[in-house]
């Protein structure tokens, strides 16, 4: 099974870059030819371009929802996202991009798209490369969660959605 782990975020926008930091940290621990680690800056169509052709995609991104505490890590299938809108003002959202691709006959969309969302209680508006103390704690935790998920996938590769 070919898997891509994609860190999404802006590495120069404080906590917004946590997804990128997670993937960079994973690089130090993970040596598996079947798992590709990559970074992305935007949502929607560009994201789809990056995950096409893989059996599974793990997206690591920040999430915002009034019911989730700052620094909480949530694992959920992409389909659970309520919004079909973009993460970016000049693009469509990934769920919408996937729908579009299917409609156009694309067959190489990962059958499993899982999100590891790290909750931020406020949007980031201040340039900086450092994570806040609270959010930097989520990096090793998220790395562990993803490592064990990848392990489980190896043990039980037939498990699909």
């Amino acid at each position, binding site marked *: 099974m070919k898997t891509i782990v994609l860190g*999404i*975020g*802006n*590495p*120069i*926008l404080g906590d*917004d870059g946590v997804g990128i930091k997670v993937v960079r940290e994973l690089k130090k621990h993970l040596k598996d030819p079947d798992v590709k680690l990559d970074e*992305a*800056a*935007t*949502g929607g*169509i*560009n994201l789809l*371009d990056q995950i096409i052709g893989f059996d599974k995609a793990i*997206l690591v*991104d*920040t*999430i*915002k*929802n009034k019911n989730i505490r700052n620094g909480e890590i949530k694992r959920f299938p992409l389909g659970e*996202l*309520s*919004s*079909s*809108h*973009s*993460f*970016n*003002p*000049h*693009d*469509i*959202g990934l769920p*919408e991009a996937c*729908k*579009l*691709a299917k*409609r*156009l*006959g694309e067959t190489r969309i990962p059958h499993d798209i899982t*999100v590891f*969302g790290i909750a*931020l209680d406020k*949007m*980031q*508006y*201040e*340039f*900086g490369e450092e994570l806040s103390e609270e959010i930097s704690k989520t990096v090793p935790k998220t790395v562990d969660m993803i490592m064990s998920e990848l392990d489980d996938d190896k043990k039980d590769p037939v498990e699909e959605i």
Partner: protein
Amino acid sequence: MKTVTIDPITRLEGHGKITIFLDKDGNVDNAYLQIPELRGFERFSQGRRAEDMPQITSRICGVCPVAHHFASTKALDEAFHVKPPAAASKLRELMYCGYFIYDHILHFYFLGGPDFVVGPDAPASQRNILGVIQKAGVDVGKEVIKHRAYGQKITAILGGKATHPVCGLPGGVSKGLDKEEVQEIKEMVKSCVDFSKFSLKLFDDVVLKNKDYVDMIKSDPYNLETYNMGLVDARNKVNFYDGMIRVTDQNAEEFLKFSGEDYTKHVSEHVEPWSYMKFPYLKKIGWHGLKDGKTSGVYRVGPLGRLNAADGMATPLADTEYKRFYETLGGKPVNSTLAYHWARLIELLYATERATELINDSDITSKHIRNPVGEPSEGVGVVEAARGTLIHHYNLDKNGLIEKANLIVATTNNAGAITMSIRDAAKGMIKKGEINNGILNKIEMAFRAYDPCFACATHSLPGGMPMEINIYDKNKKLYKTIKNF
């Protein structure tokens, strides 16, 4: 006073908030757009190596990384007193055409177009790219995806990476093209020219042949008579990558023409207490509030601003379209905000034609793609981002480290105009307190036409653009909320 809030804005994330104030009769008194700005870039860049700036600034915005990359690279050319070899300038411009190709295609088919192809009154769930395909057919959808990807591919071949290019260096570029790459780009570009023609035909069939749409385009609420700004070449034709900044007035006559390094002489920024956004204006006229006309220093940038600020397009097919554009819409300048969409498609055609010229240029495979840099000093770089004029201004110390950095981004240049367009659209479409989602979409159309990219283009999931409308009574008490989520 009643207040209507659209928060956030559908399909254009960021945390923009449109607040509409109604008077006691339920008519629009005033409207404001509020957008949080990213802060601290100057401090963030201080002390960094100047040559890192093209990479760093391409991270500022998930929407226009290529524009920031080259505004930055050009500022460094100036700051290091070096002129890139002809081949390097052509490679940069070719890559820049690739960026315009994918960016304009994405906007027309995914963001702006659904309002016309599917209809402004269609339910929001259908007013998207899937709705466009429903109407125009799966084959059209495939072509859209294919050509957007071609634009990306061209950018990636030249830039190293599609989203965050790494090719721009002071005095040139780091990578040239080999013969196979030239061949590959030639084929893609050829196909892109045809697709641009098709897109203009589609616009003709769907929009221009529909009297309701043409009436809407020409209607008062979407009309704004500001100055117009854009880069022009030596013959005053539109240029995206280089040239002089030209400003034309309400009679389409040249009002100003200056090089990037003089921007501070001609443009200043006004601050409003209710907005994080700054409002640039022409110094010569001054800031006289959010109004249009000759006596207001507000100007517009982006596709319509560029077309109005120029005397034509530098390529033949686009120039023919340019003429037809003004003939159809009643002469120059065209002041309809919704005409941005047509202007964008004309620019798409120009980008593909210009890319054709560049890829067939004998210089394009030259190995001489970089000149040695001089001593570090100060530099201003200007390009046209897809959504308008973008300025980077750096002061370097003697070791080539950044002392000071100032940016004026495209959407900021349009801040005054966008705010007025929202207000005018609201005025025309909310009468006696009668409000529904269809009307609100028409207000958003005024805004979407500019294809604004907000610095707060953070991508958080679900992020989403659930729309919330809060209506307040004259005592600012909430009495009604409409949500689409």
